[in-house]
């Protein structure tokens, strides 16, 4: 029974024995937990802790079918490319719809055009329009219940991104081949999207009939296939492929099923195109721990922002497994005679993937959904990486528990001094508590700091405010900048109005630690990378901040602490990260110039985050304002907590 509830009455006695020890070592213990968590993560870069990828889903049967592709498909792809290049000279800024529609119809696909409109949330109702074009190949063997998507983003000649003109001819050549086969038991949707991710988002919203988003008017689809099982997004830079690069990180850090990733890797290898992760051609050796570590970090860095790094990322939200294959162009200028061979390989990869997906009897459900890729054939699964985040966020919860023990027993100890000396050898189980905790004030502070967070979110995302700013002729960026300055000012001024004494502050600290711990745990469930980076950054500050020290009035210490607080303000951190990134990217530039540029870049980043949150449903921005900022405000208030005046107390006695 002792586990559930210790029935012995003298339980208090034991507790007080340990309390001094706890008081002394609590920070050390929690920090140790943090270090173990971090060490655990570092240890994951050793190959002993990584697993080799393998296939869980037997139905995929990767690469077992005999390829039926002939040379005429390759020639067709080349012809299409030549025709498209010609069309692109007259369609500088849009998709050559007539050509594409004609080709799709000629191949025998049911072809449709999908219109969508973006009512830009900033700038007084500007509208942007776009058109996707897609063709459906009906699976001859079964009714339209399930489908596969093969998609391609179309980039017009005047785009700022890398040109990927060869993608459309490739999938059209494949469509021509696929239409003549009779084994398809799933529909195949060949989709060419306009306006990068916006077109994809509009297509998916229209496909699943979501109409709540009034910023992106996703229009109607005039033809639909069955529910989408998986999607492959192609970005072919040129037919003269050097290697294939896989992009898997999706919206809010979701990842496709590892089986799909393995499938693509295996087929790419089989057809003689090397596959690299993160546009790195050469695979590092298995035992290179440092390279492993940086490869881990580089994937997690992309994942943590929650912004998809390709069109595939938007599928994940709807429970569709998707990834992007980026065929990277060979850099050397030497003409390669082997292009035909490369086209054939690419087509075979698409054929192999489609046929494997065609074999699927149920949706992807085996293998892993939570993993971190080290290299194309090695990964770390959730069971292996979760303990590191678990330890780090548990250290916050444990710290709050220890603080609670200390706070409760401290009150008792203070009172014990006043008790008669006679009772020294007695145990008093219940005492009258003299110190009262101002719960209402603590509650007010928690409420107020969260209200500031909600207010900040409303100010930056509210349409009326943006419309008002537009009518005042203030550009959106500046408007958002001012509202953020306003929020920072409010948060800095909070301690002026709400101050706690040290004892109450202790309890606020407990609440704060619980909130942070809970937040970190659930964030790392949703998006491990983001959770991990937040843990690494937040936990040491949250653990090492000790309010009791405030009682000693030491101006220098106080100033240093305030400075640290200002440095860890979410906006400062964002600015710092952008500074660092731009320093790494343009390290030949003048330092002052970078600092200056980073400032505008920060404002731009915030604006993009607002747009991301409104259109795609990325919750990083909301998380920052709803939880991180309020937590920071509470920390800031804790920093200003008043010491208790002991003198008055002594006098009254």
């Amino acid at each position: 029974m002792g586990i559930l509830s210790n029935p012995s009455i003298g339980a208090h006695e034991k507790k007080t024995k340990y309390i001094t020890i706890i008081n002394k070592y609590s920070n050390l213990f929690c920090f140790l937990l943090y270090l173990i968590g971090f060490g655990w993560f570092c240890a994951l870069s050793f190959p002993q802790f990584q697993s080799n990828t393998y296939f869980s889903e037997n139905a995929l049967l990767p690469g077992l079918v005999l390829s039926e592709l002939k040379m005429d498909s390759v020639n067709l792809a080349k012809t299409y490319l030549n025709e498209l290049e010609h069309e692109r000279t007259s369609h500088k800024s849009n998709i050559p719809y007539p050509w594409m529609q004609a080709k799709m119809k000629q191949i025998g696909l049911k072809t449709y055009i999908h219109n969508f409109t973006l009512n830009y949330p900033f700038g007084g109702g500007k509208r942007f329009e776009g058109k996707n074009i897609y063709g459906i190949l009906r699976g001859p063997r079964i009714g339209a219940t399930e489908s596969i998507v093969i998609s391609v983003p179309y980039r017009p000649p005047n785009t700022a991104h890398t040109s990927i003109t060869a993608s459309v001819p490739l999938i059209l050549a494949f469509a021509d081949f696929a239409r003549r086969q009779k084994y398809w038991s799933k529909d195949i949707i060949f989709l060419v999207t306009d306006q990068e991710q916006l077109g994809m988002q509009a297509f998916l919203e229209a496909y699943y009939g979501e109409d709540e988003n009034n910023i992106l008017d996703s229009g109607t689809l005039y033809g639909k296939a069955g529910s989408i099982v998986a999607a492959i997004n192609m970005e072919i830079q040129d037919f003269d492929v050097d290697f294939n690069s896989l992009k898997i990180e999706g919206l809010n850090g979701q990842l496709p099923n590892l089986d799909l990733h393995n499938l693509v890797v295996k087929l790419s290898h089989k057809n003689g195109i090397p596959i690299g992760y993160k546009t790195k051609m050469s695979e590092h050796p298995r035992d290179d721990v440092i390279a492993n570590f940086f490869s881990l970090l580089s994937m997690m860095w992309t994942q943590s922002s929650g912004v998809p790094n390709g069109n595939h990322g938007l599928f994940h939200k709807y429970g569709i497994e998707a990834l992007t294959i980026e065929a990277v162009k060979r850099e050397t200028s030497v003409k390669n005679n082997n292009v035909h061979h490369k086209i054939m390989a690419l087509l075979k990869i698409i054929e192999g993937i489609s046929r494997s997906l065609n074999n699927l009897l149920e949706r992807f459900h085996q293998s892993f959904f939570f993993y971190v890729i080290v290299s194309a054939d090695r990964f770390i699964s959730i069971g292996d990486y979760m303990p590191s985040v678990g330890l780090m966020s548990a250290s916050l919860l444990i710290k709050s528990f220890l603080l609670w023990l200390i706070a409760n027993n401290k009150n008792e100890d203070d009172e014990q001094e006043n008790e008669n000396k006679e009772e020294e050898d007695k145990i008093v189980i219940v005492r009258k508590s003299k110190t009262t905790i101002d719960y209402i004030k603590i509650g007010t502070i928690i409420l107020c700091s969260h209200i500031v967070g909600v207010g900040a979110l409303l100010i930056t995302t509210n349409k009326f405010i943006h419309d008002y700013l537009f009518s005042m002729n203030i550009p959106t960026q500046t408007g958002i900048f001012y509202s953020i300055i306003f929020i920072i000012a409010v948060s800095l001024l909070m301690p002026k109005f709400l101050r706690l004494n040290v004892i109450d502050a202790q309890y606020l600290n407990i609440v704060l630690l619980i909130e942070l711990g809970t937040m970190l745990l659930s964030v790392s469930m949703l998006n491990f990378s983001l959770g991990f980076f937040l843990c690494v950054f937040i936990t040491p500050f949250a653990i090492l901040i000790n309010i009791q020290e405030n009682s000693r009035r030491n101006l220098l210490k106080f100033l240093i602490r305030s400075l640290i607080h200002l440095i860890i303000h979410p906006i400062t951190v964002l600015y710092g990260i952008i500074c660092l990134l731009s320093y790494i990217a343009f390290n030949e530039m003048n330092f002052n110039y970078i600092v200056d540029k980073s400032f505008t870049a920060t404002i731009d980043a915030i604006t993009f985050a607002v747009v991301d949150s409104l259109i795609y449903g990325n919750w990083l921005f909301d998380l920052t304002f709803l939880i991180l900022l309020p937590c920071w405000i509470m920390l800031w208030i804790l920093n200003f907590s008043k010491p208790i005046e002991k003198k008055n107390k002594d006098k009254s006695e």
Partner: protein
Amino acid sequence: MNKKLLYSLLISGAIRYFISISKYSRSIENHVEISTPLNSFKRLKEGVFLYDNGIDPYDGDIFHESPFILIAANFLLKNFGEFISLILIIIDLLSAVFIYYGSKSISKRNYERQQLEVSTYAKGTEEIQFSKSDIDNIPFICAFAYLFNPYSILNCVGQTTTVWSNFLLSVVIYSMSKNMKFICLLALAFETQKNFYPFVLIVPIALAFSENDKSKNLKRIITVVTFASIFGLLNYIAFTYMGNWKFLDSTFGFIIHCRDLTPNIGLFWYFFTEMFDHFRELFLYTFQLNTTILYLFPLTFTFKESPEFLLTILLSLVTIFSSYPCIGAIAFYMSLIPLWKRCSPFMSHNFIVIATFIVTSILGPTVYHLWMYANSANANFYFGVTLVFCTSQIFLLTDLCFAYLKRKFCLTNGVTFDKTMKLSLE
């Protein structure tokens, strides 16, 4: 009425109203933690629609409310369709009022009982005795705990019929404390017809009604028999309305056999998804015995001098272990715990329990989202979290029981002991 209570009612009513008109109300309504097959508003509407079109809603597997709720909902949805959320808010606030007055007279009774025994108490136990001010303090804390509990707010916004069953339970508590026998038994009969499990509450009620009587056993038997006959009569009335007995299987049968294995915060669904069919009956009855009468008798003999405490414990037990638990019902038993405020110095798991409640309440919906919408996590994640949630509730419950017993012991033996003395209730 108390001014503080009035303000609390207004504020929490406003919170409920504003959340229910916001865009989040629909997704709140669809959460499995809030809506179960037994209380979901969607199913209620469906049942009413079927009934309205002359189809017996109990024929299918959608509707599991009692016939009285069907008839009442039919009337309300037809005549006051737009005001349903307002009506539910008012009912929820009324429950808080009944909790307030119920706990007021319970505190008063506790205080009076204590006055009779106070001469036998040890010195220095004032801190754990009920004081006069508790009669005003405790009821407010109870009502406050109901009004501002996020669980009850979400329950009310989700428009579940648990709002109604919380109201019935609050009436049961109020009328029990005021000794209004008929109303108490009637409310309990209605509640039993809706949720089945609360029938165990007849034990503390029978104990409470026989407290000042000479022939206690006779009185108790009369109470139980009256309850049984009211309950039978209600079912008969329902039969005459519906024209057949199908509703019995569709409500009680549905609860006892746990036919719907939709995930919820309880312990049944995961277990019975995995179960081999020919063992199902055995484990089903074991589980149901565990929920209803396994603890009933031991607890009754332990706490028979305080029927109100027994009621708190039994209500929590049936809520935790029922086949379709929801957070609305949890909110209700939580609001009764402040009644035993004087036991709190003996409760040693407060922090762990509260922290676990917070963590699991956030983590649960997160992993559910990953499982259902993102298609990446699976049932084990969610069940793991709900298991921890249930464990923390059980911790709370056992802690409360032990605290009550320890307090009782300390009242007569004092709170100071020699260090050399080894004291243990083990």
